[in-house]
């Protein structure tokens, strides 16, 4: 068994999957309507795509000392992406770029109404 070859093949598979995810995200961003639809499509390469490419890079380098920084990169990506998309979606909702009728569950409207009531009371 040639473990180097197997690791290279696994790395190639990881990169191909990451590339497929980016194409899927591009098609989704072109086809899905609205802001939330494009966020849904955009999150695929940002989460799984980047993680898969880091796994592929680790499999290709095959040195334990680079593993730490690659794990760190994946961690940064997983921490920062949800924050920015959360804020973008919230700003989109507040500025009327999201159609509330298309949502199955809308947990934000109750909070917004409550805060608006509070604001009016204090005036």
């Amino acid at each position: 068994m040639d473990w180097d070859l197997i690791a290279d093949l696994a790395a190639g598979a990881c990169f191909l999957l990451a590339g497929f995810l980016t194409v899927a995200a591009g098609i989704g961003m072109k086809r899905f309507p609205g802001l939330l639809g494009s966020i849904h499509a955009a999150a695929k390469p940002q989460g799984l795509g980047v993680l898969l490419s880091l796994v592929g890079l680790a499999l290709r380098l095959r040195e334990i000392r680079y593993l730490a920084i690659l794990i760190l990169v994946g961690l940064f990506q997983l921490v920062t992406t949800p924050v920015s998309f959360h804020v973008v979606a919230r700003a989109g909702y507040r500025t009327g770029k999201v159609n509330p009728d298309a949502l199955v569950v809308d947990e934000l409207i109750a909070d917004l109404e409550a805060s608006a009531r509070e604001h009016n009371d204090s005036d």
Partner: protein
Amino acid sequence: MTWVVIACAIMLGAGAIMALIRVEQGPSVLDRMVGLDVITSILIIGVALEAAWARRTLTIPILAALALVGFVGSLSIARFAAVEPEDAGRIQTPEEAQAEAQARAAAEEEAARVEAEIAARRDDEAG
């Protein structure tokens, strides 16, 4: 490995072009920011692909930097997102642009005149 790199690069390029089309079309500034976020993560995957192809470890810090600061742009723009009118993305016709420029020039002239009047009155009072 070369064929994997070529196929992956083509897929990354296609995804980046479609994200760029979304950035161009909008319609709102938030859609554009989401598209730029996708392009940033495609950049991360591309740098990782190059590093894996050439076994280059020099570019790994770039991955860390991109993963850390890639979200700052969309975060700061989302903070200042405003309600946009329906036709905010429309491009003006030359006539409309000319009319707007004339209106602005007239307003500036009026403001200068009022300012000169106020200054003259202040001079009279002082004198």
